């Protein structure tokens, strides 16, 4: 490991330690804002883990997020918390393998539509089960987990997602995925098992989302399919990742923070015009910053260094 990498790692570790103290210096509202940022950071980074290199746009985020929340609703009062999280992870992983194997042969817009449909399918299945089998729609989550604990778990998960992403990028799998993202036909011709690579990565990305849902569930006390599988979450994650920049794993963070703050300001100042203002913001992002904020910064750095080289 080079000195530069070590320095980066040390800086990151210090940052995480600092972030761990957030609950002791904030009031309840600021902490819930921090939780919001942290949960979207996990979701958008997990999204980028798969969609960044492969360029497969997924709208299934909330399918997995919701499954995580439901796992807690069903098992939260029965089992020890770490066990509940483990089960959520396993369910997310298993389901995403199944989904991945059957669908990652699709590409382009077909994949987008499929993933959007998947979230709706899962929601309808859960609804059907609850209505016809358990005969109660809506479950109560009374678990003794404080807001600060939710924040710390999300922080830990964010670190895990970033680290696994970093490790994957450095592995053969990471290389394979970049080739797939550039041209899938070429990737197949040079002997990469493209399906396998995509499915494995999809499963990791999805199970992180599932964990995020499980960690967040105790915040709501009550869960029904409409709450757990709210499609808005998928779209927000997508737009946050795009704003930040998806060609770097840490990119989405630069999208999550400004957008969460923007939503907050719009909600407070313009409660009656929220939707239209958000729509305008989304249009601006897609047209004005197609490569995201990280892309903008890197572009600026590049042109600076070019100028330097000329002089």
């Amino acid at each position: 490991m080079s000195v530069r990498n070590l320095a980066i790692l040390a800086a990151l570790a210090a940052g995480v330690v600092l972030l761990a103290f957030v609950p002791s210096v904030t009031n309840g509202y600021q902490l819930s804002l921090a939780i919001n940022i942290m949960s979207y950071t996990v979701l958008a980074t997990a999204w980028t883990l798969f969609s960044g290199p492969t360029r497969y746009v997924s709208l299934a985020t909330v399918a997995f997020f919701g499954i995580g929340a439901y796992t807690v609703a069903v098992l939260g009062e029965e089992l020890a918390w770490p066990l509940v999280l483990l089960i959520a992870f396993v369910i997310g992983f298993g389901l995403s393998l199944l989904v991945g194997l059957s669908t990652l042969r699709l590409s382009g817009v077909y994949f987008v539509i499929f993933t959007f449909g998947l979230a709706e399918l899962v929601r309808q299945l859960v609804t059907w089960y609850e209505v016809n089998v358990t005969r109660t729609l809506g479950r109560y989550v009374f678990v003794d987990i404080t807001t600060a604990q939710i924040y710390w778990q999300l922080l830990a998960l964010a670190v895990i997602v970033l680290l696994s992403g970093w490790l994957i990028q450095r592995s053969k799998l990471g290389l394979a995925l970049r080739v797939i993202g550039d041209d899938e036909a070429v990737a197949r011709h040079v002997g990469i098992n493209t399906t396998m690579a995509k499915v494995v990565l999809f499963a990791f990305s999805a199970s992180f989302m599932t964990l995020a849902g499980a960690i967040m569930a105790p915040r709501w006390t009550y869960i029904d399919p409409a709450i757990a599988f709210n499609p808005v979450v998928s779209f927000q994650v997508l737009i946050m990742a795009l704003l930040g920049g998806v060609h770097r794993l840490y990119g989405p963070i630069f999208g999550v923070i400004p957008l969460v703050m923007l939503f907050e300001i719009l909600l407070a100042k313009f409660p009656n015009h929220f939707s239209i203002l958000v729509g305008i913001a989304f249009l601006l992002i897609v047209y004005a910053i197609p490569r995201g904020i990280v892309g903008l910064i890197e572009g600026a750095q590049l042109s600076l260094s070019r100028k330097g080289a000329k002089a």
Partner: protein
Amino acid sequence: MLSAQNAAPKTIKVGYAISKTGPNAGGANITQIPNYQLWVQEVNAKGGLMIKQYGKRIPIEVIEYDDRSNSEEAVRAVERLIEQDKVDLLLPPWGTGINLAVGPTFNKHNYPQITFSAVTDRAPELAKRWPNSFWFLGTSKQYVDALVELLVKLRKEGKINDLIAMVSVADGFGTDLSKAARAGFEKAGFKRVFDKSYPVGTQDMAPIVGEAERSKADTFIAFSYPPDTVAIVDQARLTSYAPKVMFTGVGTFFPLFPQRFGDNAEGVVSLGGWSKDNKATMEYREKIRKLVNRDPDYWGSQIGYSALQMLEQSIERVGKLDRAAIIKELQTGTFDTVIGKIKLENNMPKDAFWLLGQWQDGLYVGVAPQRPGVADLRVPKAPWKK
């Protein structure tokens, strides 16, 4: 004395987060937001809330947020109201799910939570867990019990047979009520000859109404939501299906129902109900009409406004913005409201309002429980006019 006068705040901050957008916005707009507007307008017209501690009336200042029909947004908005805006009082959001989501936050900071758009069978348990929470609409079981009692009486009088056709929307509301109803009907010896649920958003009600008709049941019950309520009644009218007792769900007691069905609304039964000879309730309706140009709904609206009046009276009796004392007063006091006298028992009103109503001569009157002013249920339902 002078220092106390100086210490008086300019306004009393009342905050709420409610669904202005998203799937909950419709319900919030009919049952809840007009009540908030009317209450604030009425209180401020008097000069504000009378606070003895300062020896004067202090006007209300409203801070409102949109929770976008999302639990997480609602929790954060309520935290923002408490911690950033430092509101003196909070009004509840709309709906069962979101009221439960913000329950722990209201409880942690000990703000009274006067929910009046939440029906949950865990209400008694929730009131124990969060003593600051009040569940004005009560449990689904109490509505079903009243319905079963009515039907048992009709059967005894030989007015209906013991067959029941029942459908429910596959959502929290429909599932809760149909579950309670199944248990209630079985106990009372009714036979459910048709019992189906349909997904939210179902538009074609022809198969459901057709099967119900073929089932030969005299009683048809639909635990439905507004769009399906309208579709079911439309379909029944189209095929001239007139069960002796016709019960439909949310929407039946909305102002749109008589507007759409006119005389054909006659005889339809649902939740809630209105007192025709209570002057205060009628005055309340006039005020809402003036404010938002339409009627209140005939279930939760009046109860919600009463809950706000109770909050107001509690504050004025306590004489200061001491939330613990206000909660105590709400739990133990007796209050005069637009629907009459209310005293709470375990944080829920007891025998204070109509559980079931029926459209009779253009008014949605209360037919159960048996209390003063109750109207007789009209059976069989009048045939459809085309």
